[in-house]
């Protein structure tokens, strides 16, 4: 059953990656690779989280997979890494936590007269903010890491004639 869960997770992450990517007008040839990367990254996070690893660390590993994957696949479609990995990262943005930030802010303001409730929503606001910001930062930073390690390759992904380079 666990494998089915992973596959379902990967499938929906792929659909989400394609859809959110489509808003930003990616090249059509990049769509299959965006889907693949989104699925791999999200499934990786899903696996790690079901083994009890926290969402920030799991997102970091997901981001690393997407980053290295985009370096590897970018050469095939002559796309810069960011064109592949930004849409692939979008399904990993922790929307539920972001929603709870807004929710707890409203409830905090609505419960100003009630100290217990107020403190509870105050705590909820900060814990959700911390998770959201950390996850987004780690996602982007870890996916960018391969650029620093393999600079030469990362900078010439869109170059078409590498023959001239070797000649």
């Amino acid at each position, binding site marked *: 059953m666990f494998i089915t869960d992973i596959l379902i997770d990967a499938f929906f992450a792929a659909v989400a*990656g394609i859809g959110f990517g489509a808003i930003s*007008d990616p090249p*059509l040839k*990049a769509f299959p690779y965006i889907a693949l990367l989104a699925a791999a990254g999200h499934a990786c996070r899903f696996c790690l989280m079901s083994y009890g690893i926290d969402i920030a660390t799991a997102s970091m590993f997901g981001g690393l997979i997407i980053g290295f994957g985009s370096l590897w696949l970018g050469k095939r479609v002559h796309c810069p890494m960011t064109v592949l990995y930004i849409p692939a990262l979008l399904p990993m*943005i922790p929307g539920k936590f*972001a929603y709870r930030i807004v929710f707890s802010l*409203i409830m905090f303001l609505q419960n100003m007269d009630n100290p217990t409730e107020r403190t509870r929503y105050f705590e909820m606001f900060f814990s959700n903010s911390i998770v959201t910001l950390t996850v987004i930062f780690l*996602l982007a930073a870890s996916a960018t890491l391969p650029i620093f390690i393999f600079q030469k390759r990362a900078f010439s992904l869109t170059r078409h004639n590498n023959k*001239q380079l070797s000649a």
Partner: protein
Amino acid sequence: MRRDESLQSIAKFIAEYAAHMMGCGVHTSRVVRSAKRIGDAYETDVNISVFQRNIILTLKENNSDKIHSEVVDIPALPISFEHNAELSALSWNIYDNNLSLADAWKLYNKIVNAPSIDSLFVLILVGFANASFCKLFGGDWFSMTIVFSATITGMFLKQQMQRKHFNHYIIFIVCAFIASLCASTAYLFDTTSEIALATSVLYLVPGVPLINGVIDIVEGYTLTGFARLVNALMLVLCIAIGLSLTLVLVKDNLIIN
């Protein structure tokens, strides 16, 4: 390699190229690198300062002391990865194939004026994407259909308002409000309504500037990185305002977990 193009005309091309790239959501280091690469191809040395709204660049001829400076405004363009990929490839093309400036302009205009993806197609894809997002957060099939229809409504509204050139803060507030209001119908039924409400506005999240901002900061372009993050956070704030209007309307039904 250098042809008889004047320093001024080269500067004009590079300025236009760099401004378009910054405008359509390319992270700063790539813009600077690509611009320098084009400058290299024309045997000039390019130095660039990038700000949020303007680019200042100075070209210096390699074997003389001629210098030309150019300041250009960054246009507010919709984000386009297609332009990102194609324009990056164009810089290598110029560098590798010794293109003349006239050819470079021709290719540039062809890329910039190419039609983008059909908006109806985008609308449907975004609907499915947000519905799958709902599933990823643990929503059931019924919530997914609600989120799908809410997203289609909101996204359609966004496209129409963008076509009429409304202020984008207004667009985000209105679209977040309408989409979450549609999704709040989930409270009428026995379903995962909190997740439906939470995911209904997520298609608006400006993920590209958020991630670009972090990339810029990590790569040392702190100024543009922060500017992008602040812009993105303003939009997130607008989404929060739209969503809170709905939350205040339906707050008696909210389930606290």
